[in-house]
């Protein structure tokens, strides 16, 4: 059984410590929801697992399937089965989705995927996610809307079939119908491959569809409280304030002054535009 094991993980960005000792175990086939106010380390944790060079691991370990992930370059982590559906997927001009995905499929196989198989698989995924039928020939994410980019992350995931999928706010930027489509695609893939998932989301609607069995709440770089699905439902109803009181913690302030959100449905963009709630 493939297991992700994180022990006492400390991560810094530009000398500022973001994660202050994370312990987390995710077994094959399990779905974990990672929650917490904005700016408190959820994306950092996923990026650190994937190997984003902007983040420095100062202490702790990450093992996946018994291998020391921290010693592996980013591409080897991907080939080991890790996949991060990013919050802000990059646009790569000049490289078509099709060339990119075929290359990504081929690096994890001994024999290159045949053109016929590739076209069949990508067309199936494009149809399932109701994307532009010319997607394969368009440049990677270039000129895509926010929602298209997110759905394209799932197209990639379906073709690469990871054993550990990490989803960083994949539901933001998606309308109600698209959330349903993405959740269905993820559920199908999970049923097919028994992949594990770590899902960062602010939306109860999405989590209800994905059905996580475990919930972890990250506040100021530490997992403060853990539980089952009842925990994300409680947070959806009551926000985070009860956690701050009960566990005597303060969320990390954003930009030195902003207090963390206290409702589940507030998105970071709206927060930035309207100012934070006090």
């Amino acid at each position: 059984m493939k297991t992700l094991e994180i022990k006492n993980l400390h991560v810094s960005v530009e000398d500022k410590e973001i994660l202050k000792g994370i312990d987390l175990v995710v077994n094959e086939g399990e779905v974990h929801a990672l929650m917490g106010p904005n700016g408190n380390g959820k994306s950092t944790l996923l990026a650190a697992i994937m190997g984003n060079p902007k983040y420095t691991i100062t202490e702790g370990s990450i093992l996946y399937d018994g291998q020391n992930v921290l010693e592996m370059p980013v591409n080897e982590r991907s080939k080991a089965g890790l996949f991060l559906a990013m919050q802000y997927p990059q646009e790569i001009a000049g490289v078509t989705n099709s060339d990119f995905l075929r290359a990504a499929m081929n690096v994890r196989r001994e024999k290159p995927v045949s053109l016929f198989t590739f076209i069949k698989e990508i067309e199936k995924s494009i149809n399932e996610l109701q994307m532009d039928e010319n997607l394969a020939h368009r440049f990677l994410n270039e000129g895509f809307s926010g929602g298209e980019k997110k759905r394209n992350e799932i197209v990639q995931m379906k073709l690469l079939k990871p054993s550990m999928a990490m989803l960083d706010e994949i539901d933001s930027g998606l309308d109600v119908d698209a959330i349903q489509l993405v959740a269905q695609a993820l559920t199908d893939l999970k049923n097919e491959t028994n992949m594990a998932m770590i899902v960062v989301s602010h939306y109860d609607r999405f989590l209800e569809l994905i059905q996580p069995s475990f919930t972890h709440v990250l506040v100021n770089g530490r997992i403060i409280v853990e539980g089952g699905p009842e925990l994300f439902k409680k947070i959806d109803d009551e926000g985070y304030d009860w956690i701050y009181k009960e566990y005597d913690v303060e969320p990390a302030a954003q930009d030195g002054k902003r207090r963390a959100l206290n409702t589940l449905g507030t998105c970071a963009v709206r927060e930035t535009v309207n100012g934070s709630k006090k």
Partner: protein
Amino acid sequence: MIQISDSKTIILEDESYEIEINSDKAIDLTFVIQNNTNVLVNIQSCPSLHISCELKEDYEAKILYWNSSKNELVTSEEYNVYRNGDLTVAYGECNLANTNRDTTILLKEAGANAVLSSASLVNVNKEYRMRVVNEAEHTHGDMKNYAVVLSEGKLMIDAIGAIKKGAHRAESHQTSRALSFAEGQKATILPELLIDENDVQASHAMSMGRMDEDQLYYMMSRGLSIEDCTSLIATGYLLPIVDVVKDENLKETLKKELEGKIQELCSM
């Protein structure tokens, strides 16, 4: 295929041509275009090449110079485009020998149109001086230079768009992009717009630099090595040059050659 080993005048009256230049002495070629035509000029060897070309009114011509030479190549080229003529001159440079080009396109009569473009995989010295001159009204000139500069490469492009007095409503545009993958690689691009008329449109866009780290991380997070990413990006930059060629078989051959060269050089 027309084999060239001596200076000559070639009448281009068919739809497509494949010309191969193989000579150890200087060659002087004159193209006289008498039809809409699509030409691939494959330079196997030639120390010095002079081209002069007249594109008469209303004709459309696309010429791709594919440099396969193992030795240094020095070229000087002059093109005259007349009323409503439409000329594309393109350079595919992925060989491992120095190139020094000097190209001038004169848009001599109203409605003349020209695109001058290059795609270069630079692992030696590549130096281009390009001029597109709008001499008449309603003429349109466009320069597009794309380069991937590798560790041993040095690129210099002097791109001049000039609009002469009296060339009302002329347009002169240029785009230059140079991409490198490591520190210390050298590329110099000088975009120049020399405008001597008021009622015109002119622009230049330029980007130079290393591949964006976030893009690299994104691509690697799907399993691609740095070399795979370099190859894919370089291919995206350079491959569109082969679209100048109409013949699908020829296009496929050039595409494979370019992809092979990119893979070979980018994984070094």
